[in-house]
């Protein structure tokens, strides 16, 4: 009896997860809620409600979340802002910048500048970015740093 009740629930989860993975893979494309609902074999509104039950956000909110997470990743790699905007599926730079700033707190250009600065620091003085308790464990020590501070 328990198994009979559990099966439809499991089937439901698999369909919602399938739709989530579809967004994860196709976020850069011009995907419509209809096509995502099709992926889960639901009507658009039923799907949006079920998706929110599981992930606490609508499919559209999740799509924006995935696009912005990927935008952060690409900016970290040094890709220019306009190219990132297109690469993650936004059509307009203005809406991309606005949504990015709302999520991250700074606009994409400032984020890119910050990460270029970090990359410079990685290249020139990598040890400054590693907490000493870990650096010492690895043996990544600049000798002088630890001569005066014995651990």
């Amino acid at each position, binding site marked *: 009896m328990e198994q009979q009740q559990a099966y439809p629930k499991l089937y439901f*989860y698999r369909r919602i997860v399938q739709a989530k993975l579809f967004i994860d893979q196709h976020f850069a494309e011009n995907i419509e809620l209809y096509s995502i609902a099709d992926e889960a074999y639901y009507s658009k509104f039923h799907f949006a409600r079920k998706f929110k039950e599981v992930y606490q956000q609508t499919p559209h909110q999740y799509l924006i*979340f995935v696009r912005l997470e990927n935008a952060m990743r690409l900016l970290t790699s040094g890709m220019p802002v306009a190219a990132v905007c297109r690469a993650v599926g936004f059509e307009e730079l203005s809406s991309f910048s606005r949504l990015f700033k709302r999520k991250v707190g700074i606009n994409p250009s400032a984020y890119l500048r910050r990460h270029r600065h970090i990359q410079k620091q990685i290249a020139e003085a990598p040890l400054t970015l*590693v907490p000493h308790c870990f650096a010492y464990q690895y043996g990544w020590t600049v000798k002088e740093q630890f001569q005066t501070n014995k651990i």
Partner: protein
Amino acid sequence: MITRMTHMNIYVLDQDSALDFYTNKLGLKVIIDVPMNKDARWLTVGTPEQPGFEINLTPVHESVLHSKDTVETLRDLVKKGTFGVGIFTCSDIMATYEELKAKGVEFIKPPTKEFYGTEALFKDDSGNWFSLAQLVPVTV
């Protein structure tokens, strides 16, 4: 007064493989990746919704603190899953369980109801054990 914990250490057998596991399978993101030498890099990952907390994926290598014998012992212990490393929480454990299983994550125990919530157990690619949990709010 200590206020927060910002970094934790996980011993991994292979950093590249761990990076793939923690990002592409678990869905964490790289916080910082600093090449240090030919064997290792300072590599931390974190969850998208918990800024300020970094998991350091530490390769088990010989170093100032770890002799060759220690490294061999540590690698064996990691493979055996000796270290119960931590708990990842999620908003819906059944969905997360199905997703991670679909991505090839090895589960030791499926989601099971406990008094503190619903919990499953999985291994990372090195052998470390983790709980995946959907916790019930506790009033103290």
